[in-house]
């Protein structure tokens, strides 16, 4: 039997890895009571195997809890019936063939508890009991898969709606020049939050409908600029991203200490990072080189004692551009003619 983890994974192999870990998370969040079947059909120890076969066939179910005097005394499954057929013993009673090893789960337990028991005991269904050990439902792997898929679909819809709304932002707003500006204050020495602004920017671009390649390119450029503010400035700085339909403009500015020799700073491998910073893996002298590789235009301006301004611009290819409102096109073209 494959492990439940890979089994869960196989259900949604098309989904990206992030959603796989969401499945793990859901198996802890979802309660058994939320995914179990409530109207449990039960039988008694004195029922005939032939009758059970009929019940299972009609109900299209694979097993029944066996109850006596309100107490769970066993489980009878299709497999038990097959055993009975093989022994030509279909006239026997449920009590002769049922499994009396009773493994149950609690209704208030997370789904992961049921998954653990499925793999530990190799059973296909588990009776669900309440805090007083009364039977309240039954749960199968199918129930769990359905429950998780439903929850994932809800998640997915929320993200879809966000992405849909965001990707129409430029279309929904009519102006001669629409741009979206995001601003982040980056603190000097804040290594713990290093990379946070760049991941927010990357996510925002994806929501706006940018290609993963473009979002990655911007993410890398902004990451290097963000880390420069964290590593090299006296008091941190400001990171400003301006998204327009045809281009993305990224800027950082700080108040010092400034770069004495800008040309030297632009050389690959040149770094002024301290040993402590290098021990963390920074200070390769590749930051600005990486930025230049990712953007179409980079300008570095610095005055020692005053501060540094870094400008990075990516021009979007026609197929990469954010969709604009048709009206804004006509607005600008009318403008062009009148000039």
């Amino acid at each position, binding site marked *: 039997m494959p492990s439940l*983890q*890979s089994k*869960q*994974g*196989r259900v949604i*192999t098309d989904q990206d*890895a*992030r959603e*796989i*870990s969401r499945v*793990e*998370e859901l198996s802890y969040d979802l309660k058994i009571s939320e995914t179990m079947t409530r109207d449990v059909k039960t039988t008694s120890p004195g029922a005939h195997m032939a009758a059970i076969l009929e019940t299972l066939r009609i109900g299209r179910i694979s097993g029944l809890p066996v109850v006596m005097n309100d107490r769970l005394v066993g489980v009878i499954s299709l497999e038990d019936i097959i055993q009975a057929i093989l022994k030509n013993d279909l006239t026997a009673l449920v009590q002769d063939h049922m499994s009396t090893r009773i493994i149950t789960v609690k209704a208030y337990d997370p789904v992961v508890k049921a998954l653990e028991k499925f793999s530990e005991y190799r059973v296909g269904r588990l009776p669900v009991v309440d805090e007083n050990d009364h039977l309240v439902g039954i749960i199968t792997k199918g129930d769990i898969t359905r429950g998780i898929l439903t929850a994932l679909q809800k998640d997915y819809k929320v993200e879809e709606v966000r992405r849909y709304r965001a990707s129409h932002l430029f279309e929904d707003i009519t102006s001669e020049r629409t741009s979206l500006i995001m601003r982040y204050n980056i603190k000097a020495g804040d*290594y*713990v939050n*290093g*990379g*946070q602004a*760049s*991941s927010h920017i*990357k996510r925002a671009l994806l929501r706006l409908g940018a290609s993963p390649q473009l979002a*990655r390119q911007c*993410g*890398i450029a902004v*990451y*290097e600029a963000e*880390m420069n503010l964290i590593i090299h400035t006296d008091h941190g700085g400001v990171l400003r991203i301006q998204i327009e339909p045809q281009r993305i403009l990224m800027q950082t500015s700080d108040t010092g200490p400034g770069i004495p020799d800008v040309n030297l700073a632009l050389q690959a491998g040149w770094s002024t990072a301290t040993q402590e910073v290098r021990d*963390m*893996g*920074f*200070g*390769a*002298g*590749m*930051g600005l*080189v*990486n930025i230049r*590789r990712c953007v179409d235009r980079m300008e570095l301006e610095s005055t020692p004692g005053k501060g540094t301004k870094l400008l990075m611009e990516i021009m979007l290819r026609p197929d990469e551009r954010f969709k604009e409102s048709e009206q804004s096109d006509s607005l600008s073209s009318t403008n062009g003619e009148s000039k």
Partner: protein
Amino acid sequence: MTLEDLIQKLELTPFTTPKDFPAIHPTGGYASDLLSCAMAGAKPGNVWVTLQSHVNIVAVAALTEVCGVIISEGAQPEAAVIEKANGQGVTLLGTKLPTYQVVGKLWELGIH
């Protein structure tokens, strides 16, 4: 060769919540302890081998979209690092082997 195979064959310890490792096919590998080099050199879907274990490897791994970070020489990421990695869907794996040997084994297994 899947990430699951690499974990088995190199006896890697997953620090982060396991994903569907058998469905992840590493597209190659990259090794460096300099974050900017990893940023420039690691391709999406690569495994990245480094002995760094501090929090900034998570941002680099997320931005470069590597399928896993193999932390070599028995370095142990702190709980906050693991938590951040889980939040960003980054897989951190550990090994006692030094980077040189990890890379050698990865190459032998066909991760080029």
